């Protein structure tokens, strides 16, 4: 984030006025702050309400579910929904599948993106600008535009209905993450590299020993984005995975619907368990998320 000269704006109420006008504006500021809080609480509630509803529904019996108007709180809470839901479909098996794909994709991203970003940010070579522009131009390339040939390629390689089509592309890097890392690398002082050069360090050494250790926050951000993107991915698994044995959680969840009618209580319980790891990671590493998201927009 850009360095900003610390200069606090003068608040209304702090202006050195005296007399009734000052008091009036102070009350006004209070009221406005209060109004703002009310507004923000309402907005936040709108965003969180569906998740609370998911939580509440996950603890309802099938008869409670189909009561109209619905009770806001389940009475009594049906905790058995959770073990039942996780046995209703091979939930842990799908979790494992999702985890394999996710972890492998993070590894692939960390393999390809920092190196490319290093070449774009810290190496001087002809062709750098060309390749960087090329990489930028593919940020907006829609998966929909390439999925048919990708399907054909992966079928020729005989890897449809395996995890490979979901993992391999990560090892080719992602232009957005390369861009983010490049921006971060550009901010590391040149002198560090130059000093290492004088000491006889190669570019590989500088990359591995100086740049990467200094870039942990950026690497964490990119890893988190990759983790999240793969954890919730739907279209690619839908196309490339066929046997239910290989399903990810996103695909597996639909099975609560396919039999007779939707088992809403189970479905919501499973959804809660599906969201939980992401939510935990998110709360633990919120700083990286928010900074990374903000960086994509403000620095781009």
């Amino acid at each position, binding site marked *: 984030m850009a360095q900003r000269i610390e200069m606090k704006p003068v608040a209304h109420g702090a202006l050195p006025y005296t007399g009734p006008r000052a008091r009036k504006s102070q009350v006004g500021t209070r009221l406005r702050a209060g109004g703002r809080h009310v507004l923000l609480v309402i907005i936040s509630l709108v965003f969180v309400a569906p998740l609370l509803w998911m939580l509440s529904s996950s603890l309802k019996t099938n008869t409670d579910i189909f009561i109209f108007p619905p009770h806001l709180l389940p009475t009594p809470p049906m905790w058995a929904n959770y073990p039942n839901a996780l046995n209703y479909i091979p939930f842990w098996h799908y979790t494992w599948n999702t985890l394999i794909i996710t972890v492998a994709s993070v590894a692939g991203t960390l393999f390809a993106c920092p190196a*490319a970003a290093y070449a774009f940010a810290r190496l001087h070579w002809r062709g750098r600008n060309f390749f960087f522009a090329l990489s930028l131009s593919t940020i907006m390339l829609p998966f*929909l535009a390439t999925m048919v040939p990708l399907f054909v390629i992966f079928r020729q390689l005989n890897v449809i209905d395996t995890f490979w089509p979901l993992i391999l592309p990560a090892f080719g890097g992602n232009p957005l993450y390369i861009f983010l890392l490049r921006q971060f690398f550009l901010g590391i002082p040149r002198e560090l590299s130059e000093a290492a050069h004088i000491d006889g360090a190669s570019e590989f050494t500088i990359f591995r020993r100086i740049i990467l250790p200094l870039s942990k926050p950026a690497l964490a951000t990119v890893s988190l984005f990759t983790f999240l993107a793969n*954890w919730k991915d739907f279209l690619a698994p839908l196309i490339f995975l066929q046997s239910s044995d290989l399903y990810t959680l996103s695909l597996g969840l639909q099975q609560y619907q396919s039999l007779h009618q939707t088992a809403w209580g189970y479905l919501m319980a499973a959804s809660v368990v599906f969201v939980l790891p992401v939510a935990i990671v998110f709360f633990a590493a919120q700083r990286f998320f928010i900074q990374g998201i903000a960086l994509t927009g403000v620095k781009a």
Partner: protein
Amino acid sequence: MAKVLRREGLGLLFISPWLVGFLAFGLYPMLASLYYSFTRYSGFGAPVVTGLTNYSLIIHDPVFWTSIWNTLYFVGLGVPLSIVLGLAIALPMNAKVRGVALYRTLIYLPTIVPTVVGALVWLWIFNPDYGLLNSILSGLHLPTGSWLASPDQSKPALLMMVLWGTLGNVVVIMLAGLQDVSPTLIEAAQLDGASAFRRFWHVVLPALSPVIFYNIITSLVFFLQFFDQAYIVSSSAGAGGNVDLGAPVQSTMFYSIYLYQQAFQFQHFGRASAMSWLLLLVTALVTVAFFRGSRRFVNYGGI
């Protein structure tokens, strides 16, 4: 000379994973799909060149136009709503209020929820018979709706579902942008007697224009291609988990959904590739046009 070559070699070596990925998963598929778009190809055997047949089939296909209309509806409403709502929510957060971090977390939370989960939860909320929304509405003596089950209401309902899952991103980016607006500028305007509205219109908005511009582009590209929620709504509408894409009555038949259906339900790889290329062209044109236009409206750097 040798040193120069070594530098070039080193650069290429560092970018080689990306370069291989770009060639294999970017450039080659793009060219292949251009070729497929001029062929009849079911994915088996060799593609048979048929010239412009696929393009002609597409433009005479009413479902194709339905999908274009539905997608335009989403782009036309979704992009402005994202920008206006995103800014409207970020603005009160930018004032020095306590607990901003908490509000931001709560508003951002839906974006990390897997799209499938979000869609299923909303499907349940929108359930015409037992859903939360209708029970709230009837409690307030307001008319209830069939939402995703009705062709007239499915698009607004779906749009609401999608915005719920994406607005958090816009808000966080807008907020970061707002926090980067120099306080001295606003202060100067204030001392000059500018009203709150004029401060916003003439100082904050121009300073924020690159961020707004970025959000317009990303949400535009997003709404052109969004797939997950529409697919899940469709596949849940069919009885017994049958996938009736675009249901009810093709009111949620979006471009992406139709492309998927052509490719993976009908095995019309040629026609799907033609649709891919049209989408690619539109995405590229829109992006370039916006970048051109942005030079007039976007204020990069100091004021």
